[in-house]
């Protein structure tokens, strides 16, 4: 134990670092392949995107090392200032940001650009962890809990102003650490129920659906009619469900943009338009589906190279990997992510400090949302939502910010013996 107290490096969880490095290297190789044009260039040849990504990775590693060398207590102590800083960046991007395809998401710092929404993720995670760990969450009055939600909502609101709905959605992942800290299970079930209702409502006729809900609730009443107050509960569920269905229809027609509506309808299979709005998804599916068992081999993909797949090195990077390494490679990638997430949960659970535990779950939630949404969109399980695949997609801001997010936790974990609970 004495050793672990003395040396940062001895107490680091090297397995988590190893998984991180596996993902980053996979990313660089896949980026190289996705942009490979048959020339005799290598992964690190000047001018290639894989080289840029390798440079970003090197910068990220240096930053990771700095984080490991920092005083472990600082993260909790400076959680609010860091959060404030990332919120200032989000506000600044609205003013001085460069508008790229209709959204102000990037700040140009002369020579390189950064995407503040990526940095807001660990900023918000720090603030949420600090607040929940010092003020408590479970059993507290709503007014006491409110600031937690405000931290999250402020990030979402600022990012929606850019507007960048994809990045904003990731902030819903804070439900996972909050759930772990005692957020009502019934509420989570209610949220999942409403999400299910939303999806089904877009697929089937609303009135048939209302009839089915009515029938199911009637059956529920017959079964549980002995329970006290069941009638009121069922009436409330019915009214909320019907209200939700109509509210959703209204929001779908009035709040969403046409391209967002199209993406949702394509995902749900309500629009079959492989040349128009469904083109990206269709090409993405062809690339992934044509991978078969072991894929076409490194650099041998055809679909992702001839510009059939859009954003082949950023949000759709999984297409190249799946096309060239097949189901085997896809499975291994998913396995690495799954192992990393389970490893992080185990690490979070062994923390003595609630701050470190909550932060650990924030990391789990953010990474899980990224992976699940990103892969799901490429295979048509979800509408196209432009967020990167963590550690793998091309992009300096994303890689650097996600590295910081992860390594703060690795540092907190390495530091856990110094904390007296």
């Amino acid at each position, binding site marked *: 134990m004495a050793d672990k107290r003395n040396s940062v490096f001895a107490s680091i969880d090297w397995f988590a670092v190893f998984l991180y490095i596996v993902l980053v290297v996979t990313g660089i190789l896949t980026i190289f392949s996705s942009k490979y044009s048959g020339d005799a260039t290598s992964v690190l040849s000047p001018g290639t995107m894989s080289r840029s990504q390798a440079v970003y990775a090197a910068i990220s590693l240096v930053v990771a090392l700095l984080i490991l060398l920092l005083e472990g*207590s600082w993260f909790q102590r400076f959680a609010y200032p860091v959060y404030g800083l990332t919120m200032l960046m989000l506000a600044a991007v609205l003013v001085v940001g460069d508008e790229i395809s209709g959204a102000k998401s990037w700040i140009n710092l002369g020579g390189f650009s950064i995407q503040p929404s990526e940095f807001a993720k660990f900023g918000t995670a720090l603030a949420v962890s600090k607040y929940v760990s010092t*003020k408590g969450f479970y059993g507290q009055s709503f007014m006491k809990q409110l600031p937690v939600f405000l931290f999250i909502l402020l990030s979402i609101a600022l990012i929606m102003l850019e507007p960048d709905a994809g990045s904003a959605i990731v902030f819903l992942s804070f439900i996972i650490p909050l759930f772990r800290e005692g957020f009502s299970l019934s509420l989570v079930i209610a949220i999942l129920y409403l999400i299910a209702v939303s999806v089904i409502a877009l697929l089937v006729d609303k009135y048939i659906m209302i009839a089915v809900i009515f029938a199911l609730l009637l059956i529920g009443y017959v079964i549980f009619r002995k329970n006290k107050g069941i009638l009121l509960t069922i009436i409330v569920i019915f009214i909320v469900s019907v209200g939700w269905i109509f509210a959703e229809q209204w929001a779908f027609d009035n709040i969403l943009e046409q391209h967002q509506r199209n993406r949702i309808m394509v995902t749900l299979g309500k629009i079959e338009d492989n040349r128009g709005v469904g083109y990206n998804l269709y090409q993405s599916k062809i690339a992934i589906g044509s*991978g078969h068992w072991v894929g076409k081999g490194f650099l041998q993909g055809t679909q992702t190279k001839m510009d059939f797949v859009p954003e082949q090195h950023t949000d759709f990077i999984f297409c190249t990997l799946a096309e060239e390494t097949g189901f085997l490679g896809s499975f291994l990638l998913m396995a690495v992510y799954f192992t990393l997430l389970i490893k992080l949960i185990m690490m979070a659970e062994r923390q003595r400090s609630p701050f470190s535990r909550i932060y650990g779950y924030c990391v789990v939630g953010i990474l899980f949302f990224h992976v699940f949404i990103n892969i799901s969109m490429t*295979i048509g399980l979800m509408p196209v939502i432009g967020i990167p695949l963590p550690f793998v997609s091309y992009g300096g801001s994303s890689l650097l910010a996600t590295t910081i997010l992860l390594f703060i936790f690795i540092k907190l974990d390495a530091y856990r013996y110094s904390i007296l609970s």
Partner: protein
Amino acid sequence: MQRITDGGFFMKTDIFQNRKYLIIGFIAICFIVILIRLFTMQVLTTKYINLAKNNAIKNLVVYPARGEMYDRTGKLMVSNNIVYDVLITPKYIDSTFDVIKFCNLINMDTSTFNEKLEKCRRYSRYKASVIATQISKEDFLSTQELLYQFPGIYYVSRTVRQYPFSSGAHILGDVGEVDANFLEKHEDYSLGDYHGVRGLEFTYEKYLKGQKGFRAIIVNSANVEVAPYNDGKDDVEAIQGADMILEIDNDLQCYGEKLMANKRGSIVAIDPNTGGILAMVSAPGFDPNMLVGRERSQNYLKLLHDSVQKPLINRAVSGVYPPGSTFKTFNGLVALQTGVIDEYTQFTCNGPASSPIKCTHNHQTPLSVVPALRESCNPFFRKAFEEIISHYKNPETGLTVWNEFAHKFGFGVKFNTDIFSENPGMIPDTTFYNKWYGKGGWKSSTIRSLSIGQGEIQVTPIQLANLAATIGNEGTYIKPHLVKAIIDHTTNDTIYPYSNEVVTTGIEKRHFDTVKRGMRQMASMTGSRVYLDIPGVEVCGKTGTAQNSGKNHALFISFAPMYNPKIAIAVIVENSGYGATFAVPVAAMMIEHYLNDSIDSSRQWIEKRVLETTTIE
């Protein structure tokens, strides 16, 4: 080491510990769903493998033709010509590719071919790049069927501009390929697109460019077209850009260009009723067909580097000159309106002995404004101008009043209609003179050169033509513009961009009548009447000479007929000396040609003289 506490809010036993299993379970279920989906897509079905193998879809761009331009009489001034671009996909060029045969076919030498191929290869081996551009239809027809023998080669048709009359180069402008710089600023364009670079092509780009179409084809693994994708049902047809009807009278434009050959200067003719520009000549000019096709960039550089003639500059709107005596019309109007003189106010003129500005014209004295305009009497207008400036509590206020009138007439400001590269000119104001002489350091006599259109004042030919139109209209004008109507083929909508707004000058109609009489006498009673005595037409005019470091510029503004004029014109012939000698005959020929369709046989000697005159080396 610092002790961190949990603040006492957390119970000794973490009661939600078991929720980690729910979270792990939830994540596991999500991952299993993804894996099942992947397994179905990648392993269980072969649909996607077949799609990838056989149904690679290639999107081809179908370029639209730009809108055409017609003159006011329906003559086609700008049309389109079909040419072909040949594209190459470097991946398919291997040892079996017969380079020599291919080069012979598209008329290119092999070293250029190899050089270009290398460039394309560097851009992308998989994407097609253009290797030969704008091959004419005639050259292409013979090679079209042979091109299919070459793997990795295909072509697209494009349209380029053609100018049947070779006229109006400065007005019409030109079309070029977009460059990296342009693309950075315009998201809706992509590499290989064309855009209007100058002139009307630039101003009306959004109407003229049309909409690109797309054609999807199925290509096999050798990149050869197999069939249209989905029977072409999803293809989008290209939509030609909107056509434009110009205010220009092509006949008059061509005639003006002919008259100005071998001279430096410009002509602007306006229809006073509509503000439509009938002709806008800038000499020396060039044939617009020079800036089309494969020689475009070479010719462009040649024109750009001609630093003596500067043919690319449109002198009619970018050239600035002191207006000289033509400005006496304006000064007369301001003097009448401000009440410092009336129609009968007389000033004396001592002829060549006048001081400080002498009069070179031999005429009656004292005289009032009408004869003063006829004789272009300098002392009269110097005194009238000084009266205007000193009429107010200080010269600043006087000059400001004068400035305001000048701006209302369109001097010192841009019209901002559809004219490319307009120069606002320069009307010196109080700030300008305060800077120059110091505040209070100047008075009416300091700036008296303005009275005869000399000094710091600078105007453009189009502003002078507009002055003539305004006098002809007796106080109002519609801003000069080039396009009468834009006709959109898809919606059948017709847009009239600039024909309605009437600008007023704030000077009463009766004063214009006075000035008109002066201008009519100038045209009918002085030496210039030899040129201006057009059969059946009452011409009004005013000559001017712009002092220049070299030989003076000759100026003339005019409108005709005197009442309800149909044409207003300004002519500048640079370095030709006195206004009446060179600018007047050019204007006279233009007016006669426009109003009478031909030059009277008794006057053809004038036309001949103008055509034979050369003022440039």
